[in-house]
Every structure is written in C-alpha cells, then in structure tokens.
C-alpha cells in the first residue's frame, strides 16, 4: 500500500479484500508519520495507543462480518484545539502544554464510531489565532511543498499532514478561514461547513458565533465522507442544527451543467496577480463544464475585516478568560495575591498574538466603546449576511479566491499584524454569514505553489458545493 496517497475507498477495499488489517495499516501509517514528521512539525504528538485500539476494533467488526463504518481503518489527524480524552491537547499554547482532557469532542467520538483511527494531534496557531501557523508555542509548521514557506493557518498542521501524506484525513477548525486558507496553501481540500452543521462540543472556544469544525482531505469525495460522519445534531451543543444530514456522495456526479455561479466583483477587482490568473482560468473550466457564470456584488465586503476583528476578538477575550491558572494546568511561579496569580499566569502563558487579540477584544467591549464597536460590527455582520442572501436569490453557488497570495515565506509577515488580518478578506465573509464554503485545489504558480479556489453555497447546501467542487476537481482545476 502506498501510504501517502491513500484514499478512504482504497483503505476500505484493502480491508475488505483482506490485503491488510486495520491494525497493520495503523502501525504502518504511524511509523510513516513519525518518520516524516520532523521535516514539517505537522504533528505535535501521536496517539499510538488510541490508534491501535480503534484499529483493533475495526478488525473485530470485520472478523464478525459487521459493517466497519464509512471511515473504517482510515488514519486521521486531529487539530490540537479539539479535545481527545486521555490524549494531550495543547491548543498550540504554553498554557496547555500539559493539559489532558477528561472527555472527547463529539466530532472525534463520531469519527471513531465511523471506524476512523486517530493517529495524533496536529500543530496550529495558538488557540487557532493566526494565518500562518507561526503563532504556535511549539514551533512553526513547514509547508510540505515548499519547506521555507508557511502551511497557512491556523489549521496548518492538519493541512500539512494531509498534503504530506502522514494522514489520509484531518479535522481542522475555522473561525475566519483557518481550514480553507491552509488547504489552499498546501494544495488539499478544506471544508468549512454551515454554522451548526458539526457539533463544537469539545472544540476549544475561540469566537463562539464563528467557530466551526471541518474536514481536510486530498480529494473532494474523502472530505464529503468525513463531513457526513461528523455532522448532525448533538444534544451537547445547543448551536448544532437539527437539519438531517444528506449523503453527500450522491452529489458527486459531475452534473453541473446549467448551475448558476456568481463571481463577486469586490473579490476579484484587485487581484491582478498569478493567483488572480489561476482563478480566472479555473472559472473558464467551470464555464466549459456548462456552468452559467455571472458577476455579482457583495457591497459590504470592504467592511468585513473590520467587522470580523471586532466580533472575533471580543468573543475571544471572553472565551480566553478561563485560562487563569486555576483549572488548566499552567500557573505562574511568581504569584502573590490571587489577582497577581491571574495576571502573571496569563502574561507568561499567552503568546503575542493571543495577547494582542485579548487586548483588542477587551478594548472594544469596554465601557463607552461597546456601541461604537461591537454593536456596530454586529449590524455590519447582518449586512454581510444580507449580501449573500441577495446573491443566492440569483445564483446557486459563489466562486472566489481563498487567499490573495500563495504560501509566503516563514517570517515574512509575522511583524505586521494588520497586513496578516487583511489577507483573511476572502475567507472571513463566509464565516460571518455562517454559510458553507470550501477550498478546492485550482492550480499551481510558476514556482509550484498551490492555489485554492473557494466555493460558497447557501446555508446547509453542502450538496451543491460538493457537486461543483467534485466536477472542478475531476476536470483538473485550472488546467
């Protein structure tokens, strides 16, 4: 078996034909991942005991002639902001370097119920705050396609593991683009489902009105199968939606002729670059497939970054208040009074980007500023959502870039936080509106750097999004 190029279907066929057992695959996948990991730092730690137990369970089911589940034996990486019972979960933070969760996230429970095998936990920006994975307390991740470049963030380790072949699938989380942007940078598929589609129980909260869990995979089909396995109502997450989960694989049939696609002019007008050229070529492919492509306008786009960085940081400042040196392992050694203990623990424990966002979020929520910032941002958010609703009365899906540029060099943008925030422009709008969106590989620059194409659809219309992505993937993207 060729570990780095495995798909869900190949694993399934191999298991059913008894060419290998789930335990053999898990052992081989783990040793392959452990050997390759030093070149990228994609995994922070492995979970061999858990992986072998899950694989043994799959083998038992196969031996009894039972259905081993849609993800049977598939090696999966889990972003280290998603809780795994008994397996260290650090959130990329010094504060949680020794934190071992007492329960599993629902998404992890579900992927194991479906037969998935969790190999380990992947590196990320601290508390999922960043667009380059350089904000991890445990060192940056290197892009497997270009080791001097970032993998994107914040789910950089998950994207790098899938691209490098050290996992078949990965779970990431997305608050402002943290699944799609690294997927684009690493040349893999990354899906941010509709808000509420996947339970966030056990996802470390960053900005609760924006946080999502979603899949990363090497093919659209694999991403769709993983999403179906983890989606659906969860009584442990009041924001999870009741809507039934369709079989997404039914949409993977190439039937896109006559689909109406919108191109947001606000996204494309300033993109005079290699990325823009590749997106334009990708759009030509979609036309060739019989899609009707038309210009649309999302007029509130220019305000999206400002809106996002108020709402996301305000919610983060509140969510991160719990890391105070009492319940979550790390406590500063230099603590006098209780208040000193809180302050020193947080001052020493959080990295620069988390502190910056806590400061901004606390400021915009502080007395006298609430109406001018937070309330105003919530109103602008309503306008951004309205823009999409208007557009979706005319088109079935929206096609856009993911990032204004491909993977950049390590260290290139780390000293300019505003520039880093502004580069999130194409991805944060989908999170603000709560609609499903994904990155699917479009093509490569002359230097060989991957560029993803973004597809956005109506609330809970993942089927249309996957239908288009699958047809685009099969057509070879921008080629």
């Amino acid at each position, binding site marked *: 078996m060729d570990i780095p190029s495995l798909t869900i279907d190949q694993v399934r066929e191999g298991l059913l034909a008894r060419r290998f057992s789930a335990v053999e695959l898990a052992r081989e996948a783990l040793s392959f991942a452990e050997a390759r990991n030093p070149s990228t730092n994609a995994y922070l730690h492995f979970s061999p005991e858990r992986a072998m137990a899950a694989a043994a369970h799959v083998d038992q089911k196969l031996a009894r002639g039972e259905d081993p589940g849609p993800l049977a034996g598939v090696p999966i990486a889990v972003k280290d902001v998603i809780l795994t019972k008994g397996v260290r979960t650090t959130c990329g933070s010094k504060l949680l370097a020794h934190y071992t969760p007492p329960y599993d996230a629902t998404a992890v429970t579900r992927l194991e119920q479906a037969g998935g095998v969790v190999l380990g936990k992947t590196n990320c920006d601290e508390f999922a705050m960043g667009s380059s994975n350089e904000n991890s307390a445990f060192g940056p991740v290197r892009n497997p396609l270009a080791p001097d470049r970032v993998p994107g963030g914040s789910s950089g380790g998950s994207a790098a593991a899938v691209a490098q072949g050290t996992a078949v699938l990965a779970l990431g989380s997305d608050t402002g683009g943290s699944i799609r942007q690294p997927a684009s940078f690493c040349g893999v598929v990354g899906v941010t489902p509709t808000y509420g589609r996947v339970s966030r129980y056990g996802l470390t909260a960053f900005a609760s009105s924006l946080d999502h869990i979603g899949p990363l995979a090497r093919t659209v089909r694999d991403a769709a199968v993983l999403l179906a396995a983890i989606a659906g109502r969860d009584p442990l997450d009041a924001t999870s939606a009741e809507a039934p989960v369709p079989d997404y694989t039914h949409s993977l049939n190439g039937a896109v002729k006559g689909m109406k696609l919108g191109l947001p002019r606000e996204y494309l007008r300033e993109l005079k670059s290699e990325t823009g050229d590749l997106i334009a070529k990708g759009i030509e492919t979609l036309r060739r497939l019989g899609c009707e492509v038309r210009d649309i306008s999302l007029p509130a786009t220019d305000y999206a970054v400002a*809106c996002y960085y108020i709402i996301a940081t305000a919610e983060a400042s509140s969510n991160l208040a719990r890391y105070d040196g009492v319940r979550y392992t790390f406590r500063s050694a230099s603590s006098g009074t209780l208040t000193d203990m809180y302050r020193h623990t947080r001052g020493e424990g959080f990295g620069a980007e988390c502190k910056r966002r806590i400061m901004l979020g606390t400021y915009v929520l502080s007395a006298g500023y609430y109406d001018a910032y937070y309330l105003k941002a919530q109103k602008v958010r309503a306008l951004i959502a309205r823009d999409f609703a208007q557009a979706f009365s005319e088109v079935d899906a929206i096609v856009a870039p993911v990032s204004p540029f491909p993977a950049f060099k390590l260290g290139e943008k780390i000293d300019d936080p505003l520039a880093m925030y502004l580069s999130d422009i194409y991805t944060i709008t989908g999170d603000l509106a709560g609609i499903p969106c994904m990155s699917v590989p479009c093509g490569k620059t002359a230097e060989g750097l991957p560029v993803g194409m973004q597809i956005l659809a109506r609330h809970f219309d993942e089927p249309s999004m996957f239908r288009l992505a699958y047809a685009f993937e099969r057509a070879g993207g921008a080629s």
Partner: protein
Amino acid sequence: MKITEKEVRYVADLANLSLSDGEVHRFQADLNEILGHIDRLNDIDTAGIEPMTQVVYEAGDTTTLRADRERPPLGTEAALANAAQAGAGYFKVPKVVER
C-alpha cells in the same frame, strides 16, 4: 492616537494580563493601527439594521435545547486532574481572606 499608553495599561488590567513595558508599547502601536482600519465602519450606514447576534437557521425557539434530564457529572477527580494545584477535592488558589 486612538488609544493612549494609559488606556493600554487600563485594558490590560481589565483583561488580567501582566504586560512588560515593551509589550505595552508594541500593543499600543498595533492597536492604533488596527483601530485605524476599523474606523472605516463609520462609513457604512447601518440605520435600521438589526444586529446579528447569532447565525440563525430555521428552528423553533426551544428546539435546540436538550431534554432536562439528570446525567452523570464528570466527577471531582476528573475535574481536578488538570488543576494547577488541588487539595481536599478543591482547586487551590492563593489565600484571599485572612482568618
């Protein structure tokens, strides 16, 4: 300057963050730059727009609430397993009340 050094220190206090002098100056500059960008929100008319407090989807007011039934709790031992300091079944913190 939208935010003064004094305000940066005040906000750090609200957030229970001890910052070095270097961090205070760095964050003052960063916040001023970011708040400068955020100023553009003054240019968009939001009169009569209801704030979007949550992503809404078709569902009744209470359909997302789970049934109010007893469930076994996590238990003291598991809850305290990650405590910075624990003792006698409690989280321990520096003394706040003198005897």
